[in-house]
């Protein structure tokens, strides 16, 4: 290498070796006499010297700089000593497990500088397969819930852990010494290690018993399997393998047993064309149910039935299938429900590839279903009894017995963990009365909830993101829970507390490792030490034993279906009386996360209502009672009475009322306070089984009204085929463009494609072209994307009042349209949904139009187009004219009507420092007065591009994912670079561009980057909207 060192001279003087220069060359400061400013000419004879001038200048600069600091930075504290492996602004991911009562998901936790900011699905999991649900996404926010307890309490008084331990051990010993019963009441525990801890505790206190119950019990099913197959377990279902799916009241996509597993599998069976691996067949789904559930909304054929008809319907279905397959029938029942014959025919036709499920907790109904599935040969094909699912293990009879014991004063000590029976058990009120009388009552709840506040002690447990643990959601699937943050409050894990009180070493992490070392490490292969096994399991978040932990046993039906059918027939009283059905909402579930503002604001997939529960009535029933939407009605059943607002629900069975559980939490915290009413007490108990139904209900007009906040108030699509395009499978098989609508613009040269008429030159997308494909066939409407986006993009919660003002801030929403029976052009008729409508879910977000109407109208260029096809929003340039929002044909732009942070009117997580820890530091928190909207997660795109650049490569296909696409449990949303031929989106569009892919509102030629794939129904009849268009021609 040649010597490139050069000599630089500071001035001509140095170059010339000027004498004066050389003289002064080594003195650091020049002679002031020579260099002072020419005072006479410049400063009018003042004595200001150069240095004074510089001082004054310096001060002035500093003062001006300080004065110009518009926004002071609060509390940005840098690391004094940087923790190892933590790089500020770089995310770390930890594999962990979401466990909330029985619900489960294998997850990755994104942490930033030691605080979890996002939950993603763990793609390694064979159960959730990288998918999440809205509840999983939202559980992050519960970590930063300000309403949680800060430490253990005796009554309302805070005490230290040492005091608590001493007093509780004393109390336990006193009870034990007397031989008094100790009861550990929990919801389903899917952790084998926790169960081992409980066993240790019971070993120490032999009078202790573990009572598990579930607010949403599936005990009837387990009992039925016990009588039918000798296994008190819930089998695993393969919805992807089923060609005919019949569900009697089971909301298996939303809330039934293990929806996260069923969603993905169900969607696999519904995907067709490019997203379905080229297949042109899909499952056919029949749903018989009372209220319109999210699952029912996805069905091809749906029939409303009364809750009391579930059992008879199961028997009738059995009989019809038996007739077709030549089996024996179970006594004669007559029931006239639409599509029943058709369902039976299809089940029989696809024997061996059929699946029948029922949501009822009545073991008799489940026995009949088992018999039916057995006759259909489902066991071994679509149902696997050898891989039981453990996410519901609650035992209604034990719980009932516990309450009886408690009332009789036979319980000396009770410990509640993950259980809030005072609130969520139908006999909660009875329990509440006797809790105070017990010698020791204790709750592990993280807050002083309805049960905990009646207990003598509360020893709060940390959030699962602060905890160690494991989970076994189904046989042969083990996952680990590891903390992603250290304890925020002075909490202690349930297991540590039990171990302490049992007099054992209380470090649960050590216990867990030991348990895995002795139990699971021997089942592994290929690890040279337990440590490497442990590290690998922690890294992956899960462990699947090689030998496959299946539970062997018979799968031949050995139950007595005839006896079950007789029981059903005896209890069935055909009548016209009003009946009540309690159901779980996809958002709030059993109510355990009711204080989570993200879930409260998440619109119900079907009703689009948030922040409330309500009495869902069919239009006919409402007319009969003389009420309309939002009128208050008094619902009376089982000697209880409650006032609820009316929700007119298309698809609701006549003479029934459906009300969601999980509301009316009085002691959950600020967000849940005053939201809805608690209807658990209305649940019936039949032979000890909790049934979410009630007969002999009266619903009367109560006078007054209460407006239910809905994010969508117009139910139908008004026959607009430019918005939703749908077809039939039979037509699709013949012609993949079935259901497509090709608008034309008439010009003097004849009709032309609207895309061929434009004023614009268009934008070049030379590098990337980010786009999205949304498959309407696999979108089940679950809202996981909505909450995922909310978490990723710091989307504000605005509360019920503001939702009533139609100002929710969600960047992505799921439009839900009901079909209408009216003819085209009958606009007032089209506004009315059918009595039992077909439903379409359409995720709607910024379409990133290439000819964006919002961009041209912004006076200040706050919204512009990128060279990668993004429609960008520059918050700090926005002056808030809202012209862009008005001119958006998709109405996806959101305005900050108020300052939503640090504002007591919006007292959610953005109003306290703890809650603000959930903020994604990559995304600006928008100030009041500016517009915001979906950015296609530009921060993720940027991060992905930078990573690729640092590694000197192109971003890999599908490497960069938007939050919604990542959250989607059914892969209905495909995000990617349309310029990269290897990306999934490009491959899908390659074939679908001429088949199923369409742009919403194609005729206005805004050229969105988002394509939708037509909704294809597996129906023999013409879809209603389609039929209407045909009849018009």
């Amino acid at each position, binding site marked *: 290498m040649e010597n490139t060192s050069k000599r630089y001279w500071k001035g001509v003087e140095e170059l010339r070796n000027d004498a004066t220069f050389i003289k002064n060359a080594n003195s650091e400061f020049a002679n002031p006499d020579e260099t002072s400013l020419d005072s006479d000419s410049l400063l009018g004879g003042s004595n200001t010297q150069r240095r004074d001038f510089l001082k004054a200048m310096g001060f002035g600069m500093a003062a001006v700089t300080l004065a110009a600091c518009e926004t002071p930075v609060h509390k940005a504290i840098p690391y004094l000593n940087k923790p190892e492996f933590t790089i500020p602004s770089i995310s770390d991911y930890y594999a962990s497990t979401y466990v909330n009562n029985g619900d489960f998901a294998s997850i990755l936790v994104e942490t930033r500088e030691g605080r979890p900011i996002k939950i993603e699905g763990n793609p390694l999991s064979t159960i959730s397969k990288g998918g999440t649900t809205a509840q999983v996404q939202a559980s992050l926010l519960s970590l930063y819930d300000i309403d949680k307890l800060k430490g253990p309490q005796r009554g309302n008084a805070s005490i230290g852990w040492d005091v608590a331990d001493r007093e509780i051990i004393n109390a336990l010993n006193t009870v034990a010494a007397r031989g008094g019963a100790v009861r550990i009441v929990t919801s389903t525990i899917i952790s084998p290690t926790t169960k081992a801890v409980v066993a240790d505790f019971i070993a120490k206190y032999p009078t202790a018993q573990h009572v598990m119950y579930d607010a949403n019990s599936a005990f009837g099913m387990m009992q039925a399997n016990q009588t039918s197959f000798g296994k008190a377990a819930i089998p695993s279902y393969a919805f992807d393998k089923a060609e005919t799916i019949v569900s009697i009241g089971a909301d298996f996509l939303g809330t039934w047993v293990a929806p996260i597993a069923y969603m993905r599998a169900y969607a696999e069976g519904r995907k067709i064309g490019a997203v379905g691996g080229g297949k042109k067949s899909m499952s056919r789904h029949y749903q018989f149910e009372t209220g319109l559930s999210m699952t029912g909304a996805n069905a091809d054929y749906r029939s409303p039935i009364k809750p009391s008809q579930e059992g008879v319907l199961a028997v009738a279905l059995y009989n019809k299938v038996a007739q077709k397959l030549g089996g024996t029938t179970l006594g004669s029942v007559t029931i006239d429900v639409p599509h029943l014959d058709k369902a039976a025919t299809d089940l029989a036709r696809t024997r061996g590839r059929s699946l029948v499920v029922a949501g009822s907790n009545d073991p008799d109904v489940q026995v009949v279903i088992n018999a039916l599935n057995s006759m259909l040969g489902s066991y071994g094909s679509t149902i696997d009894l050898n891989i039981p699912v453990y996410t519901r293990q609650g035992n209604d009879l034990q719980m009932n017995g516990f309450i009886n014991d408690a009332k009789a004063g036979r319980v000396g000590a009770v410990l509640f963990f993950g259980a809030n029976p005072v609130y969520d058990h139908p006999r909660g009120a009875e329990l509440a009365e006797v809790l105070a009388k017990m010698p020791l009552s204790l709750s592990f709840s993280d807050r002083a909830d309805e049960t905990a506040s009646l207990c003598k002690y509360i020893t709060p447990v940390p959030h699962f993101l602060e905890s160690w643990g494991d989970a076994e959601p189904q046989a042969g699937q083990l996952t680990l829970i590891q903390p992603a943050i250290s304890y925020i409050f002075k909490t202690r894990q349930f297991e540590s507390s039990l171990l302490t009180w049992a007099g054992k070493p209380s470090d649960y992490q050590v216990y867990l490792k030991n348990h895995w070392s002795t139990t699971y490490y021997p089942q592994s292969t290929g690890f040279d030490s337990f440590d490497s096994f442990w590290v690998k399991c922690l890294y992956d978040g899960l462990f699947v034993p090689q030998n496959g932990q299946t539970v062997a046993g018979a799968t031949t039906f050995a139950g007595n279906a005839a006896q079950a059918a007789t029981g059903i027939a005896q209890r069935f009283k055909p009548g016209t009386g009003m009946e009540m059905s309690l159901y779980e909402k996809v958002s709030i579930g059993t109510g355990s996360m009711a204080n989570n503002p993200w879930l409260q604001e998440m619109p119900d997939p079907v009703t689009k209502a948030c922040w409330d529960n309500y009495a869902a009535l069919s239009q006919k029933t409402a007319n009969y009672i003389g009420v309309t939407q939002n009128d208050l009605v008094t619902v009376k059943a089982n000697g209880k009475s409650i006032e609820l607002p009316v929700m007119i629900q298309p698809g609701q069975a006549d003479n029934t009322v459906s009300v969601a559980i999980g509301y009316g939490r009085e002691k959950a915290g600020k967000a849940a306070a005053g939201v809805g009413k608690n209807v658990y007490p209305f649940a019936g108990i039949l032979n000890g089984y909790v049934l979410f139904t009630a007969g002999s209900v009266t619903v009367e007009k109560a006078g007054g009204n209460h407006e239910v906040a809905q994010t969508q108030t117009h139910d139908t699509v008004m026959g607009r085929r430019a918005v939703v395009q749908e077809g039939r499978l039979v037509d699709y098989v013949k012609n993949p463009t079935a259901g497509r609508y090709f608008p034309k613009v008439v010009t003097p040269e004849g009709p032309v494609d609207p895309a061929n008429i434009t004023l614009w030159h268009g934008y070049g997308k030379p590098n990337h072209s980010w786009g999205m494909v949304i498959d309407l066939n696999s979108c089940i409407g679950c809202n996981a994307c909505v909450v995922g986006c909310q978490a990723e993009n710091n989307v504000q919660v605005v509360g019920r009042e503001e939702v009533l003002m139609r100002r929710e801030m969600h960047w992505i929403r799921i439009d839900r349209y009901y079909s209408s029976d009216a003819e085209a052009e009958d606009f007032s008729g089209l506004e009315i949904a059918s009595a039992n409508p077909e439903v379409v879910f359409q995720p709607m977000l910024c379409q990133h139009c290439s000819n964006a109407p919002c961009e041209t109208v912004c006076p200040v260029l706050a919204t512009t187009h990128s060279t990668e096809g993004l429609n960008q929003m520059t918050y700090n340039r926005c002056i808030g*004219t809202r012209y862009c929002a008005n001119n958006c044909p998709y*109405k996806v732009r959101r305005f900050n009507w*108020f300052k939503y942070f640090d504002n007591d009117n919006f007292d959610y997580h953005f109003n306290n420092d703890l809650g603000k820890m959930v903020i994604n530091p990559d995304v600006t928190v928008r100030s009041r007065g500016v517009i915001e909207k979906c950015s296609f997660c530009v921060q993720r795109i940027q991060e992905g591009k930078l990573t690729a650049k640092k590694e000197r490569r192109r971003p890999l296909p599908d490497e960069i994912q938007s939050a919604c696409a990542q959250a989607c449990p059914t892969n209905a949303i495909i995000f990617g670079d349309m310029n990269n031929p290897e990306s999934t989106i490009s491959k899908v569009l390659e074939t679908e561009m001429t088949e199923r892919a369409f742009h919403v*509102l194609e005729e206005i030629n805004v050229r969105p980057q988002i394509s939708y794939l037509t909704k294809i129904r597996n129906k023999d009849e013409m879809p209603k909207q389609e039929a209407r268009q045909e009849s018009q021609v």
Partner: protein
Amino acid sequence: MSHVTSAVRTPLVTGGKTYADVTEDISRQVEGRPTREWTIAFTISVVVLIYGTACVFWTWWEGLGVWGLNKTVGWAWDITNFVWWVGIGHAGTLISAILLLFRQKWRTAVNRSAEAMTIFAVLCAASFILMHMGRPWLAYWALPLPNTLGSLWVNFKSPLVWDVFAISTYFTVSLVFWYMGLLPDLATIRDRARSKVSRYIYGAFSLGWNGSAKTWARYEYLSLILAGLSTPLVLSVHTIVSMDFATSVIPGWHTTIFPPYFVAGAIFSGFAMVQNLMLIIRVVFKLEDYITIEHVESMNKIITLTGSIVGVAYLTEFFIAWYSGVEFESYAFINRATGPYWWAYAAMMTCNVVSPQLFWSRAIRRSIVWTFTISVVVNIGMWFERFVIIVTSLHRDYLPSSWAMFHPTLFDISDYIFSFGFFFTLFLLFAKFLPVVNMAEVKAIIKSSSEKLPVSVSGVAKGERVANPTFNKDVD
């Protein structure tokens, strides 16, 4: 400019006024103490203004959430009020510019007030531009100001930027036109002033007017030039305002008929407002001889004409919505007439299309009470027209999932009331401290026919500098 006046033409000024009478009649209220009626009216206006200002302040302090707007309806009363006030602001320039060019000499009695009304209305309109912004303190970003932010510039494609230019130009030209027209009258009042203060103030504002032939000549030339400049503005301002809607993609907004339709509507509402103000002024200030029934009738004829144009436009819109075959467009109009806001549409049709047709009856168009009532009705109708266009188009556009209703809140209403307080406070100050009728120009039309003046010039008030009686600018 010469013209022949018919001997049979009815005089434009009745009551046999002399030049001195004109000066006396019009200067009286400027020089005298405020009348009781004025004091009461002014007090009410100021109270309304204070209440309105408090509400506007709260709107800015809390955020636009205090209004009833939502994710679907992003504009409602704010832009309705803005367009309504801008529309009202059209009459002044129309009267002073276009009617000047058309040599409608009756305009001289009303042009001063109409121009003042224009300026104040445009100010009210501008207040809604500021008010409707999410961050009004950054409003100057809508101006193409040189800045240090690099190449950051305004979006010249945006109709809102065109609005900024259109309205500011219109305001500037109107203000100059109005002020220039005030100069001779300010000088008259200066010359008649008894107190030093008023002599000083009016003197300063009259910019050294000396009434010389040269001054008058320049005044005339400037009038003509400004009239020429303003004439296209009358058409351009509302054309551009209409483009806020016409260039969008929203069904019901995206309509090529908007420019002429909006201009006609603006003149329609502007004249109605002029009628209302004039009818009050002529009574309160006893100017019945200057603002005569002939004036009222002429303006009513213009109201009927523009009202009918607007009516035809409404029907044309409907026809085109059907004829185009565009389902969204068709539905937008069906929804206007029969949707949840049918009552607003009905109010618009009744007030704007039906009510001005009553003026076909001579008795009604010459009746003060009828004129006043119908003018009020017309302005209500024109407010509803803008409401119908803005709100009913937005509330049900393309995706039915986003369809929503707009319900006004107290602040929507109060911020509108603010503009009334603002307008009437300014107008009453104008009416008290400035001559409401252009004395110099009215003097030129006292002799509207070839007949001799009925009364000879006499009794020149003390201190008055007699305007050149032989000077008639139209004859000149």
